[in-house]
């Protein structure tokens, strides 16, 4: 599977990476081919048109895509680990039947939690839902930083139905792009992952039928925590894939192309040690990612592992992709190859699905609990 995704990424995505980054937009043909390859329904069972694979397969796919383009990777990551998983886990039979086949074959999904005034403190969200007399729900508010918004047809939206209960009033709903009152207000211009759309979306009294409530009333916060705990492993895989892609790109250059002082620049010991150190860090990060995935798969407690994996992978990605530019000298600095892009892309790993500080807080909390006598 890894080989197949890697081949696909190299030949179908690879040639478009530079142009998509410059244009700050995702080529629709890339999205189409992700569906064709089954990469948008990795964990969706075959009966709904998915590949019926496991979580680890999703991680492998996300990592392989990121090796070539972290923007394409995050599109696939959010869609699979946040949107598909939410419906698979908590969707009713009717909801699964309605949405999973679409999500596996043609419709991109988004996950809408963050808002202008609630980022790290996600559950301070202000979007409101009210129940109408007919039993439907009316959603009103504004979401920010919504990945895939430009491409998506399905949005999972967290809104507070009973604000008096605080975060325990948060519920999750499915909104479709065509619903009245739904609009994309602004597309952000970003430092990195520029081909991945990130938008402000508005919900102006959007009415959704009762059956679009995901799971149970008031459990939205639990779902969000659960999804992000898992999703984090996906982001960690995006970061290790990125680091590997940046490293390989530079390694090929220094060991095959660039000569100075009569020899390949990669043959200087000063360079070799840096390359070896960087590769070791990548391998360590990957071991953390796949260990977290393994634990999740085995039903073990993986929250701390996921947090550490994301924290460390994003640090390694930043470090290695930055060094890779230096190894390539001027050629790493120009907007021709992928070196400088990988470095710009790496920064997001320390921000979304919980900033590095938030991961550290999670790890520390769990450690303190364990070591408090």
């Amino acid at each position, binding site marked *: *599977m890894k*080989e*197949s*995704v890697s*081949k*696909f990424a190299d030949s*179908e995505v690879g040639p478009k990476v530079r142009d998509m980054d410059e244009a700050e937009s995702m080529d629709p043909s890339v999205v189409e081919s992700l569906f*064709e*390859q*089954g*990469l948008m*329904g*990795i964990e969706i069972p*075959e009966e709904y*048109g*998915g*590949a*019926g*694979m496991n979580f680890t*397969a999703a991680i492998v*796919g996300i990592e392989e895509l990121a090796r070539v383009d972290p923007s394409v990777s995050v599109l696939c990551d959010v869609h699979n680990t946040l949107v598909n998983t939410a419906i698979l886990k908590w969707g009713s039979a009717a909801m699964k039947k309605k949405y999973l086949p679409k999500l596996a074959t043609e419709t991109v999904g988004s996950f809408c939690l963050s808002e202008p005034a609630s980022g790290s403190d996600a559950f301070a969200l202000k979007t409101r839902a009210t129940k109408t007399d007919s039993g439907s729900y009316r959603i009103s508010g504004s979401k920010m930083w919504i990945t895939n918004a430009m491409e998506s047809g399905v949005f999972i939206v967290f809104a507070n139905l009973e604000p008096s209960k605080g975060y325990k009033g948060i519920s999750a709903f499915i909104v479709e792009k065509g619903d009245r009152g739904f609009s994309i207000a602004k597309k952000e211009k970003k430092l990195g992952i520029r081909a991945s759309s990130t938008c402000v979306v508005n919900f102006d009294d959007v009415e959704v039928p009762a059956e679009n409530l995901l799971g149970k009333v008031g459990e939205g916060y639990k779902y969000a925590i659960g999804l992000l705990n898992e999703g984090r492993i996906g982001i960690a895989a995006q970061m290790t894939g990125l680091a590997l892609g940046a490293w390989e790109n530079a390694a090929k250059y220094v060991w095959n192309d660039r000569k100075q002082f009569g020899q390949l620049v990669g043959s200087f010991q000063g360079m070799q040690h840096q390359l070896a150190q960087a590769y070791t860090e990548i391998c360590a990060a990957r071991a953390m990612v796949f260990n977290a995935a393994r634990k999740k798969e085995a039903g073990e407690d993986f929250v701390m592992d996921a947090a550490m994996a994301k924290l460390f992978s994003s640090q390694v990605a930043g470090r290695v992709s930055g060094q890779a530019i230096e190894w390539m000298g001027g050629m790493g600095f120009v907007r021709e190859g992928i070196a400088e892009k990988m470095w710009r892309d790496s920064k997001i790993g320390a921000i979304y699905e919980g900033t590095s500080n938030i991961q550290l807080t999670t790890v520390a909390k769990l450690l303190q609990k364990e070591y408090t006598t």
Partner: protein
Amino acid sequence: MYSSQTNKCLLIDFWHSVAERESAVRGRLECLPARMSKSLRILVPVKRVIDYAIKPRVNKSQTGIDTAGVKHSLNPFDELSIEEAVRLRERKKTPVSDILAFSAGPAKCADTLRTAMAMGADRAIHVEVPEDQPLEPLGVAKLLKAVAEKEESNLVLVGKQAIDDDSGQTGQMLAGLLGWPQATQASKVEIEGETVTVTKEVDGGVDTVRARLPMIITTDLRLNEPRYASLPNIMKAKKKKIEKKTLEDYGVDGRRRLKTIKVEEPPPRKGGGKVQDVDGMISKLKELGKIWAFDVLPFPSSVSRPDGFLTLNATRSNLE
């Protein structure tokens, strides 16, 4: 009537008109009794080779290529064959009732066969042959003959060569052993009922041949663009069957007739030089003693030295 048709066939090489040639071939084939069933049973031999992107390294004892720990994959020409088999099925012109992937080689060939099945082959047969004693083309051809007969295949789509040993012999030997018609280096395959039309690209044009099933087709790069196995198909392939067989099952003797004396790396390429124009290139080549005679001809032609130093096929205009 039969003999006159045969005579006509012998003359084929002297005819220039493709139409004339085709009608002659058709004329001959129509003499053959129709004996095949209407659906296609396609046999696709696949080989596990060192990945095309890997630079092969000669082993220390200079007896072969280092294969330990080296990435292997499905021979690219065999990917074309699998893809074509699947496309024949998708085109729905002639029903395809079976696409059988076959491989003879070490245990790891199972991965290669899984890839073939993920691309669309229905099932697979694996004959285990030790990695250090690979079959020679004739051995493979004998084996394929036995498989094609046992499985009642009526079309064998075989890569024109494997990228490891580049022998390029198996398809032709198999055609000889089976006594079936063959079309080599296909760039296009069309099947209508039992009539198969195969196009191959030749210098300055295309060559089209027509034959009737059963037949052998060897595949070339321009035939199609192989798909990447999609994730759902990878999962489906896991449920498909790989039948394990032995050489004895097919009554084939795998003993080698050829002995590899020595394998060497090609000499490292020396840096090139730049020339200004065609005249500069010609005088440079002469100076280096790399050509023995060179006339720039008004029409394409070959210039070669008896000991095969360099063959040029050029006109002044296409050099410039």
